[in-house]
């Protein structure tokens, strides 16, 4: 069934016509002209507006809620509380610990307590003020260490006597043995802070219930399918009575990949009132909803031989999960499972613990779970290189795991262009002439990384395809693609168009794509874990090949020639041996419709069996991995501690670039986001648990002025199983930006920053410490010399 079994990475017709070229995006012009419809652009007749009441306490019991005054306000149509939606859910089916509205407990400042639907937003906001809630405040946890050590009270009643969300400990090979026999052991403790997605579009959802009893939900979600399942569960509706549509979405980056409170609330309010209901979160509310990067405290021990071969890596990680599970089970595995490339090391252990705290819940942000350990490890590797006197790029080459191999934790690696990535950034940055040779205050640093192209863990166990595509060929000459995938701006609808046009030899603009509408489209699991191009792309190849076979058969029969003489190319069918014979795609479709009846096809993709044979071995097991190398140039002002990054060189191996321009866009967006979180962004709460700045002014995201010059290189290690050999490009290129920056700072001023973000204060403190230790060393040496003299 799976597409991977029936096609390879080669062009369908010898040479690519569409793939590999920088075509326009399918929705580019609609977005450029303001025509594209996003969730908040939807206005339905009689629509009500909803608002959410949020907790002012970080941790409290709800003693009572009285909504009667709010309900009495003119213009208010409904008020709901946790009692109306008591069923728990969570994106991971094993850890349902969220409710749409708090039932008896609030767990962070901003937790949802009640929702109001009213004639307009002003009335809804006024009604929120009239809801009386009595709380009994509980001890709140803001420090993950405290949450780990103290068990009274627990944040979730379901956890017996502790606040541990997930613990994973896995060991491969003999790590302690490796440390004992190593020539060099480097140890370090690192801290990674929280950051958030900051998609420019705030979350928004609209619901209506038809008189026939069908609920339609439009939501700015990147995982329509899981939202569909969660709605059915929480509302206790049959899933076939629910339709979920994802309109155009204004950015996501992982921040829209949980089912959110507003989706359940608008659905319930529409059900109660019989009117369409919209809820648009304010920017402040988006900061509370969060699901961003997990803060982590990481301790690493890396063992190496004297010629620079890594023999063991030992990691202990404490993960601050915030108040709910979200994807936390996966995060905890990813924090260890995704580190085992692009380098080969024979022994590895990780011990990761995710704890709950009373802060906005963390979740998946671009590079989910693996950006933090990558930072720590690539800094360690730099130290190993330094201490052994090996060039930092060389040490990475030396430890490269090669292609078509297996990692220490049992992950199958197919193609890898990591070495080319290193070559490109080395040359582009003039590394050999400039590393360690720039004036003080300026430096270059390198780092590398690897990331998944989806995994074979489908979140809920099932044997059905992970991605599906359906095609309809119309006698007008139009082919419509029904795709389950969530296009979140990365261009998945465009990719599907290019693939179908390639297979059917069509002009891409004659292929239209309808996506992410559960009534019309087959299921795709969603836009997460960088799975879409790989999986949906393969499903598209599968479906298009089946349709192509019908077109070719009908044309061959019409011409009375063998099928292999027929080629579909550039909107025509041609006979390879007789140039006189030409038909348009439209004519070919009509012939095929006459021969086979109404024309369509379906295609699907499922991963092969992958992963290590142990509990959790499939989490992080990907059909293909992408690889990245970064070189960052950093300038450090020793007076002010300010770091600037004039330039970043990034080479990314995405398999075959289906559209190089879109690949470059993903790489550049990733680089930007990595540098941004390293230098400017900090998602945190104050000592009362109150968000330290829930606005786009206080949470400092870089502007066009702050963003470095980015030199992008696309490496194409055509993968044997990707669609035409493609792999992911959207998340991998974020990872190594951060450690490359840390290593560049070391090259510039000789300090190793192990705590993110790299603020001027931390730079100045590290510089002062360095001066002191140098002073002490110099003083010590002078004293020794004196002592020596005196003895003579």
């Amino acid at each position, binding site marked *: 069934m799976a597409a991977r079994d029936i096609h*390879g*990475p080669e*062009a369908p017709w010898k040479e*690519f016509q569409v793939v590999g070229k*920088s075509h*326009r*995006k399918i929705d*580019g012009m609609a*977005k*450029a*002209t*303001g025509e*594209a*419809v*996003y969730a*908040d*652009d939807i*206005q339905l007749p009689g629509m009500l507006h909803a608002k959410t009441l949020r907790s002012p306490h970080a941790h409290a019991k709800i003693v009572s809620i009285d909504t009667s005054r709010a309900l009495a306000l003119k213009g208010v149509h409904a008020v709901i509380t946790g009692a109306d939606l008591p069923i728990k859910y969570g994106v991971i089916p094993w850890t349902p610990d969220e409710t749409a509205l708090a039932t008896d407990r609030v767990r962070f400042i901003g937790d949802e307590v009640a929702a109001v639907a009213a004639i307009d937003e002003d009335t809804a906001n006024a009604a929120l003020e009239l809801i009386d809630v009595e709380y009994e405040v509980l001890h709140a946890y803001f420090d993950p260490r405290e949450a780990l050590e103290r068990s009274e009270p627990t944040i979730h009643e379901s956890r017996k006597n502790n606040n541990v969300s997930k613990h994973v400990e896995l060991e491969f090979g003999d790590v302690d043995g490796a440390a004992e026999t190593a020539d060099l052991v480097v140890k370090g403790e690192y801290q990674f802070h929280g950051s958030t997605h900051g*998609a*420019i*579009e*705030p979350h928004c959802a609209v619901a209506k219930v038809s008189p026939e009893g069908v609920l339609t939900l439009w939501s700015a979600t990147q995982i329509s399918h899981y939202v569909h399942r969660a709605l059915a569960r929480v509302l206790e509706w049959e899933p076939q009575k629910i339709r979920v549509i994802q309109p155009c*979405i*204004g*950015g*996501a980056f992982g921040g829209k990949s949980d089912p959110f409170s507003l989706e359940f609330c608008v659905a319930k309010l529409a059900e109660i009132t019989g009117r369409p209901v919209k809820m648009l979160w*304010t*920017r402040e509310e988006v900061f509370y909803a969060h699901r961003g990067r997990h803060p982590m405290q990481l301790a690493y021990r890396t063992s190496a031989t004297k010629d620079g071969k890594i023999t063991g890596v030992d990691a202990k990680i404490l993960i601050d999960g915030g108040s709910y599970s979200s994807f936390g089970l996966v995060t905890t595995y990813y924090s260890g499972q995704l580190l085992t490339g692009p380098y080969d090391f024979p022994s590895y252990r990780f011990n990761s613990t995710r704890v709950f705290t009373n802060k906005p819940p963390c979740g998946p942000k671009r590079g989910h779970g693996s950006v933090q350990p990558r930072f720590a490890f690539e800094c360690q590797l730099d130290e190993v290189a330094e201490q052994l006197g090996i060039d930092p790029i060389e040490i990475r080459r030396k430890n490269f795991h090669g*292609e*078509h191999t297996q990692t220490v934790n049992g992950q199958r690696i197919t193609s*890898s262009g990591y070495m080319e990535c290193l070559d*490109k950034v080395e040359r582009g940055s003039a590394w050999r002439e400039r590393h360690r040779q720039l004036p003080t205050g300026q430096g270059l640093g390198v780092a590398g990384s690897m990331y998944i192209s989806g995994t074979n863990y489908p979140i809920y166990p099932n044997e059905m395809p992970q991605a599906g595509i359906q095609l309809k060929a119309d006698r007008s000459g139009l082919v419509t693609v029904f795709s389950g995938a969530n296009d979140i*701006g990365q261009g998945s609808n465009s990719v599907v168009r290019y693939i179908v046009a390639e297979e059917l030899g069509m002009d891409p603009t004659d292929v239209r794509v309808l996506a992410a509408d559960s009534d019309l489209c087959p299921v795709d699991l969603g836009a997460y874990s960088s799975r879409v191009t790989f999986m949906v792309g393969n499903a598209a190849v599968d479906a298009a090949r089946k349709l192509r076979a019908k077109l070719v058969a009908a044309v061959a029969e019409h011409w009375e020639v063998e099928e292999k003489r027929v080629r579909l190319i550039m909107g025509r069918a041609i006979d390879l041996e007789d140039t006189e014979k030409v038909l348009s795609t439209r004519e070919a479709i009509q012939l095929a419709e006459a021969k086979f009846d109404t024309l369509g096809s379906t295609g699907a993709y499922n991963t092969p069996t992958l992963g290590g044979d142990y509990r959790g071995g499939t989490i992080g097991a990907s059909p293909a991995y992408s690889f990245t190398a970064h070189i960052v140039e950093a300038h450090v002002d020793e007076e002010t501690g300010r770091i600037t990054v004039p330039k970043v060189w990034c080479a990314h191996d995405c398999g*075959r*670039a289906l559209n190089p321009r*879109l690949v*470059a*866009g993903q790489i*550049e*967006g*990733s680089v*930007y*986001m990595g540098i941004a979180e390293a230098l400017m962004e900090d998602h945190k709460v104050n000592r009362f648990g109150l968000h330290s700045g829930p*606005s*786009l*002014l206080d949470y400092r995201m870089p*502007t*066009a*002025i702050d*963003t470095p010059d*980015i030199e*992008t*290189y*696309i490496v*194409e*290690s*055509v*993968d*044997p199983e990707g669609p035409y*050999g493609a792999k992911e490009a959207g998340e991998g290129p974020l990872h190594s930006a951060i450690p490359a920056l840390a290593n560049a700072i070391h090259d510039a001023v000789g300090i190793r920053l192990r705590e993110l973000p790299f603020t001027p204060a931390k730079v100045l403190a590290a510089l002062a410490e360095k001066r002191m230790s140098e002073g002490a060393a110099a003083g010590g040496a002078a004293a020794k010399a004196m002592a020596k003299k005196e003895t003579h």
Partner: protein
Amino acid sequence: MRGIELDVNGDRLETAAPDHWTLLEVLRYKLGLTGSKQGCDKGDCGACTVLVDGQPVLSCLTLAAQAVGKEITTVEGLRPMHLQSGGVGADPIQDAFDRCGALQCGFCQPGMMLSARALVAANASPSREEIQKALSGNLCRCTGYTQILEAVETAIAERVGAEAPRPAWVEDREHVREGELEARTPAKEAK
């Protein structure tokens, strides 16, 4: 509630809205011009940028009443105005943004394009720094700004028939002609 008459994209439009409604709210929720976006509603992101008498203005910080009697241009106006003045396709800025891949999620772009348009109207050949400065009030979370800057520079270059900028990856990929990329199958590696 007050009656309000606005001059938008060359049309005189009448509606009524509460006194405290912003220009953004009236455009989006009363006039159905949803192309202007709301990313923060407090002047931090620039997604709501429109042109008022040719100047970029944050419509979320402008009361609708303040815009009365002024010429307002929103993203919806660009293509029709371009067609009206005898052009084909879309406004050159829109077209360059599309071709350069600058439109990822597209949410920041209506505001971004209007800021860019105000710049090129005022300055025929801005430097890269001037472009960065002119766009610095518009946050984009998707692109890392690279392809946006490229799009603006492309539109400017094409206007005078000069060569558009060529990013490193384009140069670097030139040797990747059809057939030159080999599949990395284990069998091929072995031989």
